């Protein structure tokens, strides 16, 4: 099959590549762009591990064709930190045990980031709703919920400063 030219915006950078047209965004990110921070657990839209932000909305990158993302803004876990400084959500996840094996973590971080963009101080039950499509087998979710709350507090503090 002929490759297609693709122009994407990934983590604020314009990227041009040529890919097989049947490739999912997940495959293009991981295999063509080397952004392996985005994970996969099923490639069927069941686990949430591959969630990325497309125009700010969490989407399962295993269910989106890369070609559909032309001219859209994609954010992956690699784009969260500011330079060497962790995003407050990332720091809270690391501090509070929200990442054990770390495999579901990128998808949950981005889902949480999108939630906090809409609702800066969500309740625990809103957080649980927002991440209910992201399966985690390690934590039992409690430390993840706490870390998202803590991340929200830290972002609030930053805004006030």
């Amino acid at each position, binding site marked *: 099959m002929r490759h297609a030219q693709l122009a994407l915006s990934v983590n604020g950078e314009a990227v041009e590549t040529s890919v097989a047209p049947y490739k999912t965004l997940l495959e293009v990110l991981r295999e063509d762009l080397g952004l392996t921070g985005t994970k996969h657990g099923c490639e069927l839209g069941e686990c949430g591990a591959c969630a990325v932000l497309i125009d700010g909305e969490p989407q399962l990158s295993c269910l989106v064709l890369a070609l559909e993302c032309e001219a859209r803004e994609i954010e992956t876990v690699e784009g969260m930190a500011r330079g060497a400084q962790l995003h407050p959500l990332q720091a809270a996840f690391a501090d509070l045990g929200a990442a054990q094996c770390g495999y579901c973590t990128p998808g949950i971080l981005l889902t949480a980031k999108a939630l906090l963009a809409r609702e800066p101080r969500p309740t625990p039950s809103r957080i649980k709703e927002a991440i209910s499509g992201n399966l985690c*087998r390690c934590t039992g979710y409690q430390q993840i919920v706490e870390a998202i709350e803590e991340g929200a507090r830290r972002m609030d503090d930053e805004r006030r400063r």
Partner: protein
Amino acid sequence: MNVVGKPRRRVDGRAKVTGQTRFADDFALPRMVHLKLLRSPHAHALIESLDVARAQAHPGVHLVLTGKDFPVTFGILPVTQDEYALAPEHVRYVGDPVAGVVARDEQTATEALDLIEVRYHPLEPIATPEEALAKPEPRIHAYGERGNIHRLQAFQFGDADAAIAASDHVFEDIFFYEGNTHLPIEQHACVAALDADGKLTLWSSTQVPHYVHRALARVLRMPASQIRVIATPNGGGFGGKTDICNHELVAAKAALVLGRPVKICLNREEVFYMHRGRHPVLMKFRTGVTKDGKLTGMHLQTLVDGGAYGSYGVASTFYTGALQTVTYELPRYQFEAARVFTNKPPCGPKRGHGTPQPRYGQEIQLDKIAERLDKDPAELRLAMLAKPNSLTANWLRIGSIGLEQCIKTVVERSDWKNRYRKLPQGRGLGLACGAYLCGAGLPIYWNKMPQSGVQLLLDRSGQVTLFCGATEIGQGSDDVLAAIVSEVLGIDPYEVRCVTGDTGMTPVDLGSYSSRVTLMAGNAAIQAAQKLKSMLAEAAAEDLEVTPERISFANGRVSFESHSLTFAEAVVLAEAKFGTLGAVGSYSPPRAPGKYKGAGVGPSPAYSYTACVVEAQVDPRTGWITIPKIWIAHDIGRTINPVLARGQVEGSVYMGLSEALMEEQVFRRLPPKLSRALVHKMPSLLEYKSITSLEMPEMDTVLIEDPDPNGPFGAKEVGQGPLLPVPPAVANAIHDAVGVRINEIPITPDKVMRALEKKAKGEAPRVGPERFPDVPYPQPLIVPPAWEGGDGSEVKRHDAAAVV
């Protein structure tokens, strides 16, 4: 303590939240090609012919491998070397691999799989343990006890039947615990490549690089020194990555043949076929109790559904009985077990390995005993706790036991005394306990070498590098090792660089299974660090003009009173005095007191203890179960990093609850016109139900510290034990809520409804297995407990004739 016990970001925390942790499927090497496996569509069949010509000719295909390329068998246990990387003639479950295609990309390899022509001669599949017992033919394996019985075990530690017969009360119950799978979110993956020097390297999502290393050497018929296995950080393991995997062997062979890197990542469906998960176990408990609630004896029988291969099954089968003695005083104990082969993906070790199933039965039966004797279930248990520093009937040596404090903690925090048996209809509380190993006392293959080794290097920059074969599977083994070394050397844990899970670089550690890493690798790390500490102390003492024992190590400084050196300065002095600085430490568990045949499974340097209270809400119209809150207290001995320890407890609660309420690895028979194959009912993450963030209750987690002399700083395990009490506590809470007993896992709304209907009709309000089949257990091995004059040996040799 400066580091141990302080809540901290884990040393690999930054990598995990930035997506920089490199999992096996994140590796891409130049010239890499891709492997896919062709799997059997039959549950049981002989391969009549296999034609790969069309696949080989498919454009983009580099290599096709079949069973002919793998004449040597493998298996995780030396006694069950019963698997082939690719089945040469006999397939034993739907999903058994028969061929491998290596192509330029996954898509091409997948296309070529369809071009392989296999003619099968289907055999009758054996679906259940009952069938396996009833049908010796067709045999799934040519080895085993006989027919489709893989293994029979029987032990008598004192005459339990006589003790039970003489008891005030006798309880007999049958329970069933359905199989379930680990479901790590990371699918198994590996990359095999030839290094520039022609040696083989395998990067794999394995919990046991040492065992994979040994299996590769055997199957590929290569010297082990020419092979390097690197365990990439696992994206969840839970026991699912503790076996040798077919795809690891096939990828390695393909890399050797092609001379280029070969990658495979299983798809989610294949992960369900790889399995090695929780064995389905049918159990019968006969227990004698005095009128004041003391156990007099227990006779436990188990029937274990092994699936198609041995895997860890012989050990798993022992574990369905080995740990019934370590929580409560049990003067006499008889245990009989059978593992049978069936044509389903092989079962193996999942978190708790063989022990959650009997724990479920034991703790529900104790609830019934408390009810019959009109005692509080917590008080009943508190009055019968095993004693610290004691021997059990089956000759296990117990060290510290913090279970009393665990029970009292969850009782107090859940307001048990005011709420148990007092909540409104539909709402209830249930209590259960558990105990687990801190590492198996014996290695998987017999040897006299240490189970864990650690090497430390120091250089004049002050840099500390730790090498250990332990594998980071998310549990925090790197963090534990860094914390322990930094505690001894008085430095910051983030100063320690950990190189782990690499058979080419690190001393052998047997792997991340049986909750062994903190205790075993931790002790090895202490030993290595202390050797370096004394060298540093000696060198610093000379400089500060004091005796070495007066030198202290803390906060990155090596000091005597107000005089101090930086850690790096002390290293420079020591390197000048002693030469290049390095030290090794190793750990071998204490010798177990049991000497009888079979005494190898169950001993551990220490045992962890857990108590749990579950609150349940049951809707009597629908049977729907909601769990609002769980209280759990775990005796961890000593907490190394409370953030991670709590995460292990809560992750165990989650997994136990998910098993209790919904997870099941079950199969259905296709209709005869579709081959009658036994197929997995739901090999997908959507259909295989597991708890999400929405169903997860609030957890109240307490770590109890009763240090064990065998643990590093007194530490015991935390990764598996806390799962054990959760399923029975759920069952007991449902009983308190609506008065029905569900003696079967998972506890689903339809079972609750059936029990409620029986209750309404005045029948016994119980749902679960009704009968225990006749199992031809052999004459038991007779091993008298210490208090009956035993010395840890059997008194009568195993009567081999009785087995046949």
